[in-house]
Protein backbone atom coordinates (compact mmCIF):
# COMPACT_ATOMS: atom_id res chain seq x y z
CA UNK A 1 0.00 0.00 0.00
CA UNK A 2 1.20 3.47 -0.82
CA UNK A 3 1.49 5.71 2.18
CA UNK A 4 0.85 8.84 0.14
CA UNK A 5 -2.63 7.50 -0.73
CA UNK A 6 -3.39 7.91 2.95
CA UNK A 7 -1.36 10.97 3.83
CA UNK A 8 -2.39 13.15 0.92
CA UNK A 9 -1.21 16.74 0.76
CA UNK A 10 -4.74 17.98 1.49
CA UNK A 11 -4.89 15.93 4.69
CA UNK A 12 -1.48 17.02 5.93
CA UNK A 13 -2.40 20.62 5.12
CA UNK A 14 -5.61 20.45 7.15
CA UNK A 15 -3.72 18.69 9.96
CA UNK A 16 -1.03 21.37 10.15
CA UNK A 17 -3.44 24.30 9.60
CA UNK A 18 -6.82 23.22 10.95
CA UNK A 19 -9.81 25.33 9.87
CA UNK A 20 -12.49 26.29 12.37
CA UNK A 21 -10.73 24.79 15.36
CA UNK A 22 -11.62 25.99 18.88
CA UNK A 23 -14.93 25.90 20.73
CA UNK A 24 -17.15 28.90 19.99
CA UNK A 25 -20.43 30.40 21.06
CA UNK A 26 -23.29 30.46 20.50
CA UNK A 27 -24.19 26.80 20.15
CA UNK A 28 -27.15 24.56 20.87
CA UNK A 29 -25.49 21.24 21.59
CA UNK A 30 -22.02 20.08 22.55
CA UNK A 31 -20.99 16.43 22.38
CA UNK A 32 -17.86 14.51 23.17
CA UNK A 33 -17.01 11.49 21.08
CA UNK A 34 -14.18 9.13 21.89
CA UNK A 35 -12.39 6.45 19.92
CA UNK A 36 -11.95 3.83 22.65
CA UNK A 37 -9.22 1.93 20.84
CA UNK A 38 -6.80 4.84 20.85
CA UNK A 39 -8.28 7.35 23.30
CA UNK A 40 -8.71 10.05 20.68
CA UNK A 41 -11.35 12.58 21.67
CA UNK A 42 -13.30 15.37 20.06
CA UNK A 43 -15.53 17.95 21.71
CA UNK A 44 -17.81 19.40 19.07
CA UNK A 45 -20.47 22.13 19.13
CA UNK A 46 -23.11 22.93 16.54
CA UNK A 47 -24.93 26.20 16.05
CA UNK A 48 -28.03 25.87 13.93
CA UNK A 49 -30.40 28.67 12.94
CA UNK A 50 -33.62 27.57 11.29
CA UNK A 51 -32.55 24.85 8.90
CA UNK A 52 -29.03 26.18 8.50
CA UNK A 53 -25.73 25.00 10.01
CA UNK A 54 -24.28 28.35 11.02
CA UNK A 55 -21.20 27.09 12.87
CA UNK A 56 -19.40 23.91 13.83
CA UNK A 57 -16.65 24.37 16.37
CA UNK A 58 -14.43 21.68 17.82
CA UNK A 59 -11.51 20.91 20.05
CA UNK A 60 -9.77 17.61 20.46
CA UNK A 61 -6.71 15.52 20.33
CA UNK A 62 -5.89 12.76 17.97
CA UNK A 63 -3.95 11.56 14.98
CA UNK A 64 -3.50 13.48 11.74
CA UNK A 65 -6.45 11.69 10.15
CA UNK A 66 -8.93 12.49 12.92
CA UNK A 67 -7.75 16.08 13.25
CA UNK A 68 -7.71 16.79 9.53
CA UNK A 69 -11.12 15.23 9.03
CA UNK A 70 -12.62 17.61 11.62
CA UNK A 71 -11.15 20.54 9.74
CA UNK A 72 -12.52 19.25 6.43
CA UNK A 73 -15.91 18.67 8.02
CA UNK A 74 -16.02 22.28 9.19
CA UNK A 75 -15.31 23.59 5.70
CA UNK A 76 -17.82 21.30 4.06
CA UNK A 77 -20.91 21.70 6.25
CA UNK A 78 -20.89 25.24 7.63
CA UNK A 79 -23.35 27.40 5.69
CA UNK A 80 -25.33 24.46 4.34
CA UNK A 81 -28.82 23.35 5.26
CA UNK A 82 -29.07 20.62 7.89
CA UNK A 83 -30.47 18.21 5.31
CA UNK A 84 -27.70 18.90 2.83
CA UNK A 85 -24.99 18.67 5.52
CA UNK A 86 -26.27 15.35 6.87
CA UNK A 87 -26.56 13.95 3.38
CA UNK A 88 -22.89 14.84 2.73
CA UNK A 89 -21.96 13.20 6.04
CA UNK A 90 -23.64 10.02 4.82
CA UNK A 91 -21.78 10.22 1.50
CA UNK A 92 -18.49 10.65 3.38
CA UNK A 93 -19.31 7.75 5.71
CA UNK A 94 -20.08 5.50 2.75
CA UNK A 95 -16.84 6.49 1.05
CA UNK A 96 -14.50 5.79 3.96
CA UNK A 97 -16.29 2.54 4.79
CA UNK A 98 -16.21 1.32 1.19
CA UNK A 99 -12.82 -0.46 1.26
CA UNK A 100 -11.93 1.55 -1.83
CA UNK A 101 -14.98 0.35 -3.77
CA UNK A 102 -16.77 3.67 -4.39
CA UNK A 103 -15.68 6.48 -6.66
CA UNK A 104 -15.77 9.69 -4.60
CA UNK A 105 -17.66 12.68 -6.02
CA UNK A 106 -15.61 15.83 -5.56
CA UNK A 107 -18.60 18.09 -6.23
CA UNK A 108 -20.29 16.64 -3.13
CA UNK A 109 -17.30 16.10 -0.85
CA UNK A 110 -14.78 18.77 -1.92
CA UNK A 111 -11.55 18.39 0.11
CA UNK A 112 -13.07 15.41 1.88
CA UNK A 113 -12.40 13.19 -1.15
CA UNK A 114 -8.80 13.16 0.07
CA UNK A 115 -10.00 10.66 2.66
CA UNK A 116 -10.89 8.10 -0.01
CA UNK A 117 -7.48 6.57 0.66
CA UNK A 118 -8.46 5.93 4.28
CA UNK A 119 -11.00 3.38 3.11
CA UNK A 120 -8.13 1.05 2.23
CA UNK A 121 -6.89 1.19 5.84
CA UNK A 122 -9.71 -0.34 7.93
CA UNK A 123 -7.84 0.44 11.16
CA UNK A 124 -8.10 4.16 10.39
CA UNK A 125 -11.74 4.45 9.34
CA UNK A 126 -12.81 5.27 12.90
CA UNK A 127 -10.22 8.06 13.03
CA UNK A 128 -11.66 9.65 9.90
CA UNK A 129 -15.25 9.34 11.13
CA UNK A 130 -14.77 10.54 14.72
CA UNK A 131 -15.76 14.19 14.23
CA UNK A 132 -18.32 13.37 11.51
CA UNK A 133 -20.20 11.06 13.85
CA UNK A 134 -19.99 13.72 16.55
CA UNK A 135 -21.47 16.26 14.14
CA UNK A 136 -24.27 13.90 13.16
CA UNK A 137 -25.06 13.22 16.81
CA UNK A 138 -24.96 16.89 17.85
CA UNK A 139 -27.08 17.97 14.89
CA UNK A 140 -29.70 15.31 15.57
CA UNK A 141 -29.92 16.48 19.17
CA UNK A 142 -30.08 20.13 18.14
CA UNK A 143 -32.89 19.47 15.66
CA UNK A 144 -34.79 17.40 18.23
CA UNK A 145 -34.63 20.24 20.75
CA UNK A 146 -34.77 23.13 18.27
CA UNK A 147 -37.50 24.90 20.25
CA UNK A 148 -34.97 25.61 22.99
CA UNK A 149 -32.89 28.10 21.02
CA UNK A 150 -29.18 28.78 21.24
CA UNK A 151 -27.20 28.47 24.43
CA UNK A 152 -24.40 30.74 25.46
CA UNK A 153 -22.29 30.64 28.55
CA UNK A 154 -24.21 33.68 29.82
CA UNK A 155 -27.47 31.76 29.54
CA UNK A 156 -26.39 28.25 30.50
CA UNK A 157 -22.91 28.01 31.97
CA UNK A 158 -21.10 24.83 31.08
CA UNK A 159 -24.07 23.74 29.03
CA UNK A 160 -23.30 20.44 27.46
CA UNK A 161 -25.84 18.36 25.68
CA UNK A 162 -24.82 14.99 24.49
CA UNK A 163 -23.17 11.84 25.57
CA UNK A 164 -20.62 12.69 28.18
Amino acid at each position, binding site marked *: *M*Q*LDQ*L*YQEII*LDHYKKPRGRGLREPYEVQVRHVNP*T*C*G*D*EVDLRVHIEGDKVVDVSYEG*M*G*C*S*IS*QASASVLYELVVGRTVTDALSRVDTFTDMVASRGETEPDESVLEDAIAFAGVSK*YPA*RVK*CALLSWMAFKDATAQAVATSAVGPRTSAVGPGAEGGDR
Partner: protein
Amino acid sequence: MTMVIPSGMPQYADAPRLDVAKIRADFPLLDREVNGHRVVYLDSGNTSQKPRQVLEAVREHYERHNANVARSVHTLGTEATLAYEGARQKVATFIGASSAEEVVFVKNATEAINLVAYAFSNASTDPSADPRFRLGPGDEIVITEMEHHSNIVPWQLLCQRTGATLRWFGITDNGRLDESGVDTLINERTKLVSMVLVSNILGTANATSRIRARCREVGALLMLDASQAVPHRSVDVVGYDCDFLAFTGHKMLAPTGIGVLWGRGELLAAMPPVLGGGSMIETVRMEGSTFLPPPARFEAGTPPIAQAVGLGAAVDYLTGVGMDAIAWHEKELTTYALEALATVPGLRLFGPQVPVGRGGTLSFDLSGVHPHDVGQVLDAEGVQIRVGHHCARPTCVRFGVAAMSRVSLYLYNTTEEIDALIAALGKVREVFD
Protein backbone atom coordinates in the same frame (compact mmCIF):
# COMPACT_ATOMS: atom_id res chain seq x y z
CA MET B 1 40.79 -2.68 27.97
CA THR B 2 39.52 -6.06 28.96
CA MET B 3 38.71 -6.66 32.57
CA VAL B 4 39.93 -10.00 33.78
CA ILE B 5 37.42 -11.76 35.96
CA PRO B 6 39.12 -13.97 38.53
CA SER B 7 38.77 -17.66 37.85
CA GLY B 8 36.05 -19.29 39.83
CA MET B 9 33.77 -16.29 39.25
CA PRO B 10 31.12 -16.29 36.47
CA GLN B 11 32.84 -15.35 33.19
CA TYR B 12 31.40 -13.29 30.31
CA ALA B 13 31.35 -16.42 28.16
CA ASP B 14 29.12 -18.07 30.75
CA ALA B 15 26.21 -15.83 29.79
CA PRO B 16 23.44 -18.06 28.49
CA ARG B 17 23.21 -17.69 24.72
CA LEU B 18 20.71 -18.44 22.02
CA ASP B 19 21.20 -18.72 18.27
CA VAL B 20 18.74 -16.15 16.96
CA ALA B 21 19.13 -17.22 13.30
CA LYS B 22 18.26 -20.79 14.24
CA ILE B 23 15.28 -19.60 16.26
CA ARG B 24 13.99 -17.37 13.48
CA ALA B 25 14.00 -20.35 11.12
CA ASP B 26 11.33 -21.91 13.37
CA PHE B 27 8.90 -19.00 12.85
CA PRO B 28 7.35 -19.13 9.36
CA LEU B 29 5.70 -15.72 9.68
CA LEU B 30 9.02 -13.94 10.10
CA ASP B 31 9.75 -14.83 6.47
CA ARG B 32 6.84 -12.89 4.98
CA GLU B 33 6.82 -9.43 3.54
CA VAL B 34 4.67 -6.50 4.62
CA ASN B 35 4.24 -3.62 2.19
CA GLY B 36 7.24 -4.73 0.18
CA HIS B 37 9.59 -5.13 3.12
CA ARG B 38 10.67 -8.15 5.13
CA VAL B 39 8.40 -7.98 8.17
CA VAL B 40 9.94 -6.51 11.32
CA TYR B 41 7.72 -7.77 14.11
CA LEU B 42 8.15 -5.62 17.22
CA ASP B 43 4.74 -6.27 18.80
CA SER B 44 5.27 -9.44 20.81
CA GLY B 45 3.95 -7.77 23.95
CA ASN B 46 0.64 -7.74 22.11
CA THR B 47 0.87 -11.31 20.87
CA SER B 48 3.87 -13.43 20.00
CA GLN B 49 4.49 -15.27 16.75
CA LYS B 50 4.26 -19.07 16.80
CA PRO B 51 7.03 -21.57 16.01
CA ARG B 52 6.45 -24.59 13.76
CA GLN B 53 6.76 -26.84 16.79
CA VAL B 54 3.63 -25.32 18.34
CA LEU B 55 1.70 -25.26 15.07
CA GLU B 56 2.65 -28.91 14.48
CA ALA B 57 1.54 -29.95 17.96
CA VAL B 58 -1.89 -28.37 17.45
CA ARG B 59 -2.23 -29.92 13.99
CA GLU B 60 -1.16 -33.35 15.19
CA HIS B 61 -3.63 -33.16 18.05
CA TYR B 62 -6.51 -32.47 15.67
CA GLU B 63 -5.31 -34.98 13.06
CA ARG B 64 -4.51 -37.86 15.42
CA HIS B 65 -5.93 -37.46 18.93
CA ASN B 66 -9.00 -35.22 18.77
CA ALA B 67 -11.74 -36.09 21.28
CA ASN B 68 -13.31 -34.46 24.31
CA VAL B 69 -11.49 -34.69 27.62
CA ALA B 70 -12.29 -36.06 31.07
CA ARG B 71 -15.47 -37.88 30.10
CA SER B 72 -14.72 -40.57 27.53
CA VAL B 73 -13.69 -44.19 28.00
CA HIS B 74 -12.56 -44.58 24.41
CA THR B 75 -8.97 -44.49 23.21
CA LEU B 76 -9.14 -41.08 21.58
CA GLY B 77 -10.73 -39.55 24.65
CA THR B 78 -8.00 -41.04 26.80
CA GLU B 79 -5.29 -39.69 24.51
CA ALA B 80 -6.84 -36.23 24.45
CA THR B 81 -7.18 -36.22 28.23
CA LEU B 82 -3.57 -37.30 28.67
CA ALA B 83 -2.44 -34.55 26.29
CA TYR B 84 -4.51 -31.89 28.08
CA GLU B 85 -3.38 -32.96 31.54
CA GLY B 86 0.17 -33.36 30.24
CA ALA B 87 0.11 -29.71 29.20
CA ARG B 88 -1.04 -28.79 32.70
CA GLN B 89 1.92 -30.64 34.20
CA LYS B 90 4.32 -28.91 31.79
CA VAL B 91 2.99 -25.50 32.80
CA ALA B 92 3.24 -26.41 36.49
CA THR B 93 6.89 -27.43 36.11
CA PHE B 94 7.60 -24.30 34.04
CA ILE B 95 6.46 -21.95 36.82
CA GLY B 96 7.71 -24.05 39.72
CA ALA B 97 4.25 -24.98 41.01
CA SER B 98 4.29 -27.75 43.58
CA SER B 99 1.47 -29.58 41.82
CA ALA B 100 -0.37 -29.58 38.50
CA GLU B 101 -3.62 -29.24 40.47
CA GLU B 102 -2.63 -25.64 41.17
CA VAL B 103 -2.81 -24.79 37.45
CA VAL B 104 -6.27 -23.73 36.24
CA PHE B 105 -6.68 -23.40 32.48
CA VAL B 106 -8.66 -20.33 31.43
CA LYS B 107 -9.11 -18.33 28.24
CA ASN B 108 -6.51 -15.66 28.93
CA ALA B 109 -5.03 -13.56 31.73
CA THR B 110 -8.12 -11.34 31.77
CA GLU B 111 -10.27 -14.36 32.55
CA ALA B 112 -7.79 -15.52 35.20
CA ILE B 113 -8.05 -12.20 37.05
CA ASN B 114 -11.82 -12.07 36.65
CA LEU B 115 -12.07 -15.62 37.98
CA VAL B 116 -10.45 -14.54 41.24
CA ALA B 117 -12.56 -11.37 41.36
CA TYR B 118 -15.80 -13.31 40.88
CA ALA B 119 -14.75 -15.91 43.44
CA PHE B 120 -14.42 -13.03 45.92
CA SER B 121 -17.80 -11.76 44.75
CA ASN B 122 -19.49 -15.12 45.21
CA ALA B 123 -17.90 -15.62 48.61
CA SER B 124 -19.06 -12.18 49.71
CA THR B 125 -22.71 -13.18 49.42
CA ASP B 126 -22.18 -16.54 51.15
CA PRO B 127 -21.87 -16.29 54.96
CA SER B 128 -20.29 -19.75 55.14
CA ALA B 129 -17.51 -18.88 52.65
CA ASP B 130 -13.86 -18.63 53.67
CA PRO B 131 -13.44 -15.18 55.31
CA ARG B 132 -10.29 -14.48 53.28
CA PHE B 133 -12.52 -14.10 50.20
CA ARG B 134 -15.36 -12.20 51.85
CA LEU B 135 -15.54 -8.50 51.08
CA GLY B 136 -17.74 -5.70 52.32
CA PRO B 137 -17.69 -2.00 53.15
CA GLY B 138 -14.48 -1.13 54.99
CA ASP B 139 -12.44 -3.79 53.21
CA GLU B 140 -9.81 -2.70 50.71
CA ILE B 141 -8.23 -3.99 47.53
CA VAL B 142 -4.93 -2.51 46.37
CA ILE B 143 -3.66 -2.31 42.80
CA THR B 144 -1.22 0.01 41.01
CA GLU B 145 -1.50 2.85 38.51
CA MET B 146 0.70 0.77 36.19
CA GLU B 147 -1.86 -1.96 35.57
CA HIS B 148 -3.34 -3.18 32.33
CA HIS B 149 -7.10 -2.49 32.24
CA SER B 150 -7.62 -6.19 32.92
CA ASN B 151 -6.11 -5.73 36.38
CA ILE B 152 -8.11 -2.56 37.08
CA VAL B 153 -11.65 -3.01 35.82
CA PRO B 154 -12.43 -6.40 37.46
CA TRP B 155 -11.50 -4.89 40.85
CA GLN B 156 -13.50 -1.72 40.22
CA LEU B 157 -16.52 -3.87 39.43
CA LEU B 158 -15.90 -6.09 42.47
CA CYS B 159 -15.69 -3.04 44.72
CA GLN B 160 -18.93 -1.69 43.24
CA ARG B 161 -20.67 -4.99 43.98
CA THR B 162 -19.36 -5.42 47.52
CA GLY B 163 -18.89 -1.87 48.80
CA ALA B 164 -15.16 -2.45 49.29
CA THR B 165 -12.68 0.34 48.50
CA LEU B 166 -10.10 0.27 45.71
CA ARG B 167 -6.73 1.90 46.38
CA TRP B 168 -3.55 2.03 44.32
CA PHE B 169 0.18 2.65 44.25
CA GLY B 170 1.36 5.50 42.03
CA ILE B 171 4.21 5.63 39.52
CA THR B 172 7.41 7.67 39.89
CA ASP B 173 8.63 10.01 37.15
CA ASN B 174 11.15 7.32 36.17
CA GLY B 175 8.36 4.85 35.56
CA ARG B 176 9.01 2.81 38.68
CA LEU B 177 6.38 1.78 41.18
CA ASP B 178 6.18 4.31 44.01
CA GLU B 179 6.34 2.03 47.04
CA SER B 180 6.75 4.85 49.54
CA GLY B 181 3.21 4.45 50.86
CA VAL B 182 3.37 0.69 51.24
CA ASP B 183 2.78 0.66 55.00
CA THR B 184 -0.39 2.77 54.84
CA LEU B 185 -1.76 1.62 51.49
CA ILE B 186 -1.57 -2.00 52.61
CA ASN B 187 -3.10 -2.25 56.04
CA GLU B 188 -5.31 -4.42 58.25
CA ARG B 189 -8.31 -3.67 56.02
CA THR B 190 -6.55 -4.93 52.87
CA LYS B 191 -7.88 -8.25 51.62
CA LEU B 192 -6.00 -8.50 48.33
CA VAL B 193 -3.13 -6.80 46.50
CA SER B 194 -3.05 -7.39 42.74
CA MET B 195 -0.10 -6.01 40.80
CA VAL B 196 1.72 -6.38 37.55
CA LEU B 197 5.11 -8.09 37.53
CA VAL B 198 6.34 -6.48 34.29
CA SER B 199 4.44 -3.48 32.93
CA ASN B 200 2.96 -3.96 29.45
CA ILE B 201 3.49 -0.30 28.64
CA LEU B 202 6.53 0.99 30.55
CA GLY B 203 8.47 -2.27 30.60
CA THR B 204 9.14 -1.81 34.31
CA ALA B 205 9.93 -5.02 36.17
CA ASN B 206 8.51 -4.56 39.63
CA ALA B 207 10.16 -5.73 42.79
CA THR B 208 7.64 -7.52 44.96
CA SER B 209 9.47 -8.25 48.20
CA ARG B 210 8.40 -5.20 50.22
CA ILE B 211 4.80 -5.50 49.10
CA ARG B 212 4.76 -9.24 49.70
CA ALA B 213 6.22 -8.79 53.19
CA ARG B 214 3.58 -6.18 54.02
CA CYS B 215 0.83 -8.46 52.67
CA ARG B 216 2.03 -11.22 54.99
CA GLU B 217 2.10 -8.81 57.94
CA VAL B 218 -1.52 -7.78 57.50
CA GLY B 219 -2.86 -11.07 56.16
CA ALA B 220 -3.70 -9.83 52.65
CA LEU B 221 -3.51 -12.09 49.61
CA LEU B 222 -1.09 -11.25 46.78
CA MET B 223 -1.94 -11.72 43.10
CA LEU B 224 0.61 -11.12 40.34
CA ASP B 225 -0.25 -10.35 36.72
CA ALA B 226 2.66 -12.10 35.04
CA SER B 227 1.43 -11.81 31.45
CA GLN B 228 4.53 -9.88 30.37
CA ALA B 229 6.89 -11.80 32.65
CA VAL B 230 6.33 -15.54 32.16
CA PRO B 231 7.09 -15.39 28.39
CA HIS B 232 10.37 -13.57 28.94
CA ARG B 233 12.08 -14.69 32.12
CA SER B 234 12.13 -17.54 34.56
CA VAL B 235 9.17 -17.10 36.92
CA ASP B 236 8.91 -19.31 39.97
CA VAL B 237 5.74 -19.07 42.06
CA VAL B 238 7.52 -20.39 45.14
CA GLY B 239 10.29 -17.83 44.71
CA TYR B 240 7.75 -15.00 44.37
CA ASP B 241 5.79 -16.44 47.29
CA CYS B 242 2.56 -15.06 45.85
CA ASP B 243 -0.95 -16.45 46.22
CA PHE B 244 -2.23 -16.13 42.66
CA LEU B 245 -0.45 -15.67 39.35
CA ALA B 246 -2.11 -14.96 36.00
CA PHE B 247 -0.67 -15.19 32.49
CA THR B 248 -1.73 -15.94 28.95
CA GLY B 249 -0.51 -18.43 26.37
CA HIS B 250 -0.58 -16.35 23.22
CA LYS B 251 2.17 -14.00 24.40
CA MET B 252 4.47 -17.01 24.98
CA LEU B 253 4.36 -18.69 21.55
CA ALA B 254 1.12 -20.62 22.22
CA PRO B 255 -2.23 -20.23 20.44
CA THR B 256 -4.84 -17.69 21.54
CA GLY B 257 -7.65 -18.92 23.76
CA ILE B 258 -5.56 -20.50 26.53
CA GLY B 259 -4.37 -18.83 29.69
CA VAL B 260 -3.42 -19.82 33.20
CA LEU B 261 -4.50 -19.00 36.70
CA TRP B 262 -2.06 -20.44 39.18
CA GLY B 263 -3.26 -20.43 42.78
CA ARG B 264 -1.84 -21.73 46.01
CA GLY B 265 -3.44 -25.17 46.40
CA GLU B 266 -5.12 -24.57 49.72
CA LEU B 267 -6.52 -21.23 48.52
CA LEU B 268 -8.00 -22.68 45.34
CA ALA B 269 -9.55 -25.41 47.48
CA ALA B 270 -11.21 -22.74 49.65
CA MET B 271 -12.52 -20.72 46.69
CA PRO B 272 -16.15 -20.99 45.59
CA PRO B 273 -16.83 -21.88 41.95
CA VAL B 274 -17.39 -19.16 39.38
CA LEU B 275 -18.72 -20.71 36.18
CA GLY B 276 -21.11 -23.58 36.74
CA GLY B 277 -21.69 -26.43 34.29
CA GLY B 278 -20.29 -29.71 33.09
CA SER B 279 -16.86 -30.99 34.15
CA MET B 280 -16.81 -28.98 37.40
CA ILE B 281 -19.39 -30.95 39.40
CA GLU B 282 -19.19 -33.88 41.77
CA THR B 283 -22.91 -34.63 42.10
CA VAL B 284 -25.85 -32.76 40.62
CA ARG B 285 -29.27 -33.04 42.18
CA MET B 286 -32.23 -30.87 41.31
CA GLU B 287 -32.04 -29.43 44.83
CA GLY B 288 -28.36 -28.49 44.60
CA SER B 289 -24.92 -29.69 43.57
CA THR B 290 -21.49 -30.39 44.93
CA PHE B 291 -18.29 -29.52 43.15
CA LEU B 292 -14.99 -31.11 42.19
CA PRO B 293 -11.75 -29.99 43.76
CA PRO B 294 -9.53 -27.60 41.80
CA PRO B 295 -8.54 -27.25 39.06
CA ALA B 296 -11.66 -28.93 37.60
CA ARG B 297 -13.94 -26.80 39.83
CA PHE B 298 -12.91 -23.76 37.79
CA GLU B 299 -13.00 -25.35 34.33
CA ALA B 300 -16.71 -25.68 33.52
CA GLY B 301 -17.53 -26.83 30.01
CA THR B 302 -15.30 -28.21 27.28
CA PRO B 303 -11.95 -26.47 27.69
CA PRO B 304 -9.62 -25.24 24.91
CA ILE B 305 -7.98 -28.64 24.46
CA ALA B 306 -5.86 -28.17 21.35
CA GLN B 307 -4.84 -24.74 22.62
CA ALA B 308 -3.64 -26.29 25.88
CA VAL B 309 -1.66 -28.83 23.87
CA GLY B 310 -0.18 -25.89 21.95
CA LEU B 311 0.72 -24.21 25.23
CA GLY B 312 2.46 -27.39 26.36
CA ALA B 313 4.48 -27.39 23.13
CA ALA B 314 5.32 -23.71 23.65
CA VAL B 315 6.58 -24.46 27.15
CA ASP B 316 8.74 -27.25 25.71
CA TYR B 317 10.11 -24.86 23.09
CA LEU B 318 10.90 -22.10 25.59
CA THR B 319 12.48 -24.60 27.99
CA GLY B 320 14.56 -25.99 25.15
CA VAL B 321 15.92 -22.55 24.30
CA GLY B 322 16.29 -21.73 27.98
CA MET B 323 14.52 -18.91 29.82
CA ASP B 324 17.82 -17.48 31.07
CA ALA B 325 19.11 -17.33 27.48
CA ILE B 326 15.90 -15.60 26.38
CA ALA B 327 16.12 -13.08 29.24
CA TRP B 328 19.77 -12.38 28.42
CA HIS B 329 19.08 -11.98 24.70
CA GLU B 330 16.27 -9.53 25.45
CA LYS B 331 18.46 -7.62 27.88
CA GLU B 332 21.14 -7.17 25.19
CA LEU B 333 18.51 -6.14 22.63
CA THR B 334 16.95 -3.72 25.12
CA THR B 335 20.32 -2.14 25.81
CA TYR B 336 20.87 -1.74 22.07
CA ALA B 337 17.38 -0.35 21.52
CA LEU B 338 17.64 2.15 24.39
CA GLU B 339 20.89 3.51 22.95
CA ALA B 340 19.48 3.61 19.43
CA LEU B 341 16.23 5.33 20.41
CA ALA B 342 18.23 7.94 22.33
CA THR B 343 19.75 9.05 19.01
CA VAL B 344 16.34 9.84 17.47
CA PRO B 345 15.67 13.61 17.61
CA GLY B 346 12.52 14.54 19.53
CA LEU B 347 11.97 11.06 20.95
CA ARG B 348 10.81 10.85 24.55
CA LEU B 349 11.03 7.41 26.15
CA PHE B 350 8.56 6.61 28.93
CA GLY B 351 9.59 4.28 31.73
CA PRO B 352 13.03 3.19 32.92
CA GLN B 353 15.81 4.67 30.77
CA VAL B 354 18.34 1.98 31.70
CA PRO B 355 18.24 -1.73 30.86
CA VAL B 356 18.03 -2.68 34.52
CA GLY B 357 14.83 -3.67 36.27
CA ARG B 358 12.92 -3.57 33.01
CA GLY B 359 11.87 -5.87 30.22
CA GLY B 360 12.11 -5.39 26.47
CA THR B 361 9.06 -3.16 26.17
CA LEU B 362 9.85 0.41 25.11
CA SER B 363 7.17 3.08 24.79
CA PHE B 364 7.84 6.52 23.41
CA ASP B 365 6.50 9.73 21.97
CA LEU B 366 7.99 11.17 18.80
CA SER B 367 7.91 14.96 18.96
CA GLY B 368 4.15 15.23 19.12
CA VAL B 369 3.38 13.10 16.06
CA HIS B 370 0.36 11.07 17.07
CA PRO B 371 1.22 7.39 17.69
CA HIS B 372 -1.34 6.29 15.09
CA ASP B 373 0.56 8.24 12.50
CA VAL B 374 3.88 6.83 13.73
CA GLY B 375 2.48 3.30 13.52
CA GLN B 376 1.08 3.90 10.04
CA VAL B 377 4.35 5.15 8.58
CA LEU B 378 6.28 2.34 10.28
CA ASP B 379 3.83 -0.18 8.81
CA ALA B 380 4.55 1.14 5.34
CA GLU B 381 8.18 0.18 6.04
CA GLY B 382 7.16 -3.28 7.25
CA VAL B 383 7.75 -2.43 10.91
CA GLN B 384 4.91 -3.66 13.14
CA ILE B 385 4.55 -1.85 16.45
CA ARG B 386 1.60 -1.16 18.74
CA VAL B 387 0.21 2.33 19.13
CA GLY B 388 -2.51 3.68 21.40
CA HIS B 389 -3.14 3.54 25.11
CA HIS B 390 -2.12 -0.14 25.38
CA CYS B 391 -5.07 -0.91 27.64
CA ALA B 392 -3.23 1.09 30.30
CA ARG B 393 -4.89 4.47 30.01
CA PRO B 394 -4.13 5.55 33.60
CA THR B 395 -0.41 5.11 32.89
CA CYS B 396 -0.74 7.31 29.78
CA VAL B 397 -2.58 9.92 31.83
CA ARG B 398 0.17 9.73 34.48
CA PHE B 399 2.68 10.79 31.83
CA GLY B 400 0.38 13.40 30.30
CA VAL B 401 -0.23 11.75 26.93
CA ALA B 402 -3.28 10.18 25.30
CA ALA B 403 -1.31 7.45 23.63
CA MET B 404 2.16 6.03 23.15
CA SER B 405 4.07 4.11 20.49
CA ARG B 406 5.36 0.80 21.82
CA VAL B 407 8.10 -1.55 20.69
CA SER B 408 8.15 -4.93 22.40
CA LEU B 409 10.95 -7.43 21.86
CA TYR B 410 11.17 -11.20 22.06
CA LEU B 411 13.57 -14.07 21.55
CA TYR B 412 13.41 -13.91 17.74
CA ASN B 413 14.21 -10.20 17.40
CA THR B 414 17.58 -8.91 16.19
CA THR B 415 19.64 -5.74 16.35
CA GLU B 416 19.11 -5.41 12.56
CA GLU B 417 15.39 -5.09 13.24
CA ILE B 418 16.04 -2.29 15.70
CA ASP B 419 18.13 -0.59 13.01
CA ALA B 420 15.12 -0.93 10.66
CA LEU B 421 12.92 0.65 13.32
CA ILE B 422 15.24 3.63 13.70
CA ALA B 423 15.37 4.12 9.93
CA ALA B 424 11.57 3.95 9.74
CA LEU B 425 11.26 6.53 12.52
CA GLY B 426 13.28 8.82 10.24
CA LYS B 427 10.55 8.40 7.59
CA VAL B 428 7.93 9.50 10.10
CA ARG B 429 9.72 12.80 10.45
CA GLU B 430 9.93 13.15 6.66
CA VAL B 431 6.13 12.86 6.38
CA PHE B 432 5.17 15.09 9.31
CA ASP B 433 7.91 17.72 9.62
